[in-house]
């Protein structure tokens, strides 16, 4: 940049503490400025933050117990909230009138506008422990005065009359957490193994590459099925799922490892690597201090693509009957439950709401990743 190139060194202000502090802040400020420029990334950051908040405070935000069944409202459609009632602000939904068609074995629902059910914020509820330890008796929103026959299904109900909204909210906890663990695990494995392979080259590389090729050439589904089936049935669901996540990520690292290797192969003889070596840095130190950061933008991109694959791998496992076990809820489980033509044809909300949750989070993560990458990239001009 011309404006700094020719500042004669002598004229620069001498070092004082304040200047140094500003300079330290500079890197992050620069980062933030660049990031802010990326509008969609900013929006995505907000969305993702909201999703995590929702996941963390799921108990408070979900109006109902996600596993509470209600025989009266199986397959109830989503209920829209109307804000005004009789010209004043009174948010409400219309009560659903249910008739059971015994011939088709179907419940038919009709909203009855004559019977408004009022909805409000901070409504009382059964006692529960927020985050597992804060005793609470209030939900963010819900029915202000629940009576028999009243319902509030923002996203509709499933085959057991469970509230899909509450389930999606609770599903976020698993989908946005354990899934990420798997992604990070594959990340660490991929970078380490790929890094070692690319950096050291030679026989190490040959062996690791063959091993990767081996893993990659085995179709994933049998591998999953074999490994998943070997898990003892006696394990609690959460542990089982965790192990399955590990299994999935064990396979996921290979593509990243290959990319990292390629990049490292080309970088290991760059001057800055030699320079670090001359400085006395160890080889592993070089990998993590110099090579990995240079590769960051690619890693971010891979990561954002890996998250949906993790979520989807979970649904595939569910499809095969080796996925998450109830009562644990995840978006994958919700999608799996929508996997029948009945849901597709008669209760599409079962399909659309979890799918939308996944799409939104995946898109936000992706755009967020784009933004972070651009902001972290010193070569991206600050224009």
């Amino acid at each position, binding site marked *: 940049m011309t404006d700094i190139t020719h500042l004669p060194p002598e004229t620069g202000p001498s070092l004082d503490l304040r200047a140094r502090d500003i300079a330290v802040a500079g890197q992050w400020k620069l980062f933030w400025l660049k990031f802010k420029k990326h509008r*969609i990334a900013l929006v995505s950051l907000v969305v993702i933050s909201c999703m995590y908040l929702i996941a963390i405070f799921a108990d408070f935000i979900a109006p109902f117990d996600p596993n509470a069944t209600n025989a009266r409202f199986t397959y109830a459609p989503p209920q829209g909230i109307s804000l005004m009632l009789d010209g004043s602000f009174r948010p409400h939904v219309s009560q659903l009138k249910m008739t059971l068609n015994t011939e088709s074995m179907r419940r038919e629902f009709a909203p009855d506008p004559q019977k408004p059910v009022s909805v409000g914020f901070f409504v009382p509820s059964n006692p529960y422990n927020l985050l597992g330890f804060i005793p609470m008796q209030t939900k963010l929103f819900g029915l202000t005065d629940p009576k028999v026959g009243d319902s509030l299904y923002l996203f509709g109900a499933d085959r057991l009359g469970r509230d899909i909204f509450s389930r999606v909210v609770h599903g976020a906890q698993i989908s946005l957490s354990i899934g990420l663990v798997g992604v990070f695990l594959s990340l660490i494995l991929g970078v380490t193994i790929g890094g070692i392979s690319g950096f050291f080259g030679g026989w190490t590389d*040959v062996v690791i590459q*063959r091993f990767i*090729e*081996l893993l*990659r*050439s*085995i*179709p*994933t*589904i*049998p*591998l999953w*099925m*074999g*490994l998943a*089936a*070997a898990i003892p049935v006696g394990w609690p669901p959460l542990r089982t799922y965790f192990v399955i996540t590990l299994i999935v990520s064990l396979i996921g690292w290979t*593509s990243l490892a290959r990319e990292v290797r390629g990049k490292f192969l080309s970088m290991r003889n760059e001057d800055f690597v030699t320079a670090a070596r001359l400085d006395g840095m160890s080889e592993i130190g070089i990998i993590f201090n110099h090579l990995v950061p240079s590769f960051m933008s690619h890693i971010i*991109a891979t990561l954002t*693509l890996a998250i*949906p*694959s993790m*979520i*989807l791998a979970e*649904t*595939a496992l569910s*499809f*095969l009957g080796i996925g998450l076990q109830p009562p644990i809820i995840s978006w*994958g489980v919700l*999608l*799996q439950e*929508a*996997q*029948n*033509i009945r849901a*597709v*044809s008669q209760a599409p909300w079962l*399909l659309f709401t979890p*799918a939308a949750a*996944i*799409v939104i989070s*995946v*898109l936000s993560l*992706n*755009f967020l990743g784009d933004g972070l990458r651009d902001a972290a990239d010193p070569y991206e001009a600050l224009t």
Partner: protein
Amino acid sequence: MLRFLAKRLVFAIPTLFAVSIIAFIIIQLPPGDYLTTLLADWASQGGAVEEGTVAAMRERYGLDQPVYIQYYKWIAGILMHGDFGISFELGKPVTELIWGRLGFSLLLSLLTLCFVWAVAIPIGILSAVRQYSISDYSATFLAFFFLAVPDFLMALSAMYLMSAWFGQSVGGLFSAEYVDASWSFGRLVDFAGHVWLPVIVIGLGSLAALVRIMRANLLDELSKPYVTTARAKGMSEFELLIRYPVRLALNPLISTLGWILPAVISGEIIVSVVMSLPTTGPLLLRALLAQDMYLAGSLILLISVLTIIGTLISDILLALTDPRIRLQ
């Protein structure tokens, strides 16, 4: 080049060997064996099978022997007479069962690959050239949408839509009258009428990754100086795009081809079950569930071999398209 090929082929041998062992281990991992499945199946039909019958069958199938002996028998059979063993469940030699299905699997994979490339590349180009525009965002959105919806759900929804709204006969690769027929023009037309749906369903899932890769590659290439050089020759922007950056951006894609193939085959398994396609997917899934081990093992082995071949092909393609590779 020849040396490179030879080296790769030599390396493939231990890989294949390892694959065969892993394939065998995978199918041994779940507790029980084929007879357990058989018993479960039979029990659900209201019958009981006497211990004696079971023991006799176990001996007959060699399931009472240690795993390494079973493995040795299987691998020796393959190596010596190309005999992949017998499917317990279908009582037929594995070789008789798989070739036709493998053919359809390959065909489906290739068609899917063509579809994905034909769609993903233009979209990737568009989204790179018009980076951060509405079209870029919508392409990204759509790609991720299809990525986020599991393929079996997509398959089911697509079939439902086709069937309920358009009255199309769905599922399978042929109409009833052509199922057992020999190839003819009519059968080909019928095939084309059926195959597009699974191709789209399987393809849409891998679309996103490809669009993103293409976009990223192209963005890298677009800022390279040789693009300016070409522009300075007076070339039109479109020609320029296709001849230079796109041409170069495709190279890394070719190297992923070898990996896409197994991904497609894996993705195909579940979709094929939902759509009842005569591919290896349902056969493999059933064989795995039933612990029909020689069938499952052989299928895994063959798919792995295909993958290794696919990787080799993509390496060769890459060397052909990128002169820089050849020197190494």
